[in-house]
């Protein structure tokens, strides 16, 4: 039994140390993984993401990456991601769900395509601002967006979005701006309870409602 005791003591110590170390790094490693995955999943023909260098990992190193705004300058925790006008190609980077403290996402004016994730509120529950305008996104505006409780701004203009705008978006209590111009959306626009929401529905042939063409009585 003395032998087993000798085996267990160093094992416990090593495990103890390992768990302490992983405890310290938990929460910021996911943000590093988030950005690395985003970079790997997108085509960046003009190398805008050149500053995204993952070789020398110091405290807060991702905070100096282009387009990355951190909560605190010396902590790897992303607050906003702004990658506008970078000729980026590819699908919506779902790995962004690993940036668990993200509140602002701006991917506007790129060449992104495919759908807006149907589970966007699960990926980004704390989103306050979403700008996907001027891309090639297609498919519908996901119902999940109505679960982004804290969202203040939604800009989806200039894409190829189709189908109806989920009526449930009218339940978003903090929404201040909702612009979806220049898409292929149809059906009635949401009936926002907050009359002060800034909206833009122009250039969607099928949309109907107040200040647009009358909705058919079905």
């Amino acid at each position, binding site marked *: 039994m003395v032998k087993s005791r000798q085996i267990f003591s160093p094992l416990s110590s090593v495990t103890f140390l390992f768990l302490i170390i992983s*405890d310290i790094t938990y929460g910021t490693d996911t943000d590093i993984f988030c950005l690395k995955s985003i970079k790997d999943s997108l085509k960046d023909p003009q190398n805008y993401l050149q500053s995204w260098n993952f070789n020398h990992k110091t405290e807060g190193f991702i905070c100096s990456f282009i387009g990355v705004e951190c909560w605190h300058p010396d902590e790897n925790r992303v607050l906003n991601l702004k990658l506008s006008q970078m000729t980026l190609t590819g699908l919506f980077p779902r790995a962004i769900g690993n940036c668990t403290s993200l509140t602002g996402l701006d991917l506007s004016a790129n060449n992104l395509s495919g759908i807006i994730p149907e589970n966007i509120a699960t990926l980004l529950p704390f989103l306050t601002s979403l700008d996907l305008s001027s891309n090639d996104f297609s498919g519908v505006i996901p119902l999940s967006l109505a679960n982004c409780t804290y969202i203040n701004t939604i800009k989806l203009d200039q894409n190829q979005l189709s189908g109806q705008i989920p009526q449930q978006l009218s339940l978003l209590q903090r929404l201040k701006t909702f612009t979806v111009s220049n898409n292929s959306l149809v059906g009635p626009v949401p009936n926002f309870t907050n009359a002060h929401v800034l909206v833009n529905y122009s250039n969607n042939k099928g949309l109907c409602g107040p200040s647009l063409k009358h909705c058919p009585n079905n």
Partner: protein
Amino acid sequence: MERLTSSFMSSFFVWAILVLDLVLKASGNQEGDALNALKSNLLDPNNVLQSWDATLVNPCTWLHVTCNSDNSVTRVDLGNADLCGQLVSQLGQLTNLQYLELYSNNLSGKIPEELGNLTNLVSLDLYLNNLTGPIPTTLGNLAKLRFLRLNNNTLTGGIPMSLTNVFSLEVLDLSNNYLEGEIPVNGSFSLFTPISYQNNPGLIPPKNAPSPVSPTPPPASSGLLMPVLPLLLLYADSNFSLSY
């Protein structure tokens, strides 16, 4: 008689200019005095304040102090400096201050109300210290404030409603304190999510808030599960040794 009067008048005039000059010179060092009052209230084991010489005409040559072209203090950068002690009300006299960076030290005591006089303040970073007491309501006067990071202290009381009128606010972090009461959602606070308020057990989430998807896990210092597991191992270890 007239000559006497006019010479008296000109002497008085010269005297008045000299006095005014002296007063102006003395008040020009008021910001240095304010910073010196802070230095006197701090323990500085790493001597980061060694260059803070109160006999100089202004503090603009002091390390960690930045001035504008009028020799008025715009930045105080003392983050991560192992400083102990308390803040002083005189900080409110630095009327052109834009950045007050005192994060990651061992500062204690309260946040002075007089910081509400710093109407040019853009960034107030007092996070990762041992500050106590309330968030002063006067911070609602900081109409240019963009960054308010008071997280990881032992602040108590409520979140002042006056802050909802600071429309320049972009980043708010009040997490890891002992704040209580309701979380404002109006005005500028429409932008802030549960992330800003994590780990304040007494804070009441706004009505109609969803059952929170678990926000970012708490920082390492307050993690509970990780230390428990190795303790269980050690317990098993001691048990095992007893059984033989």
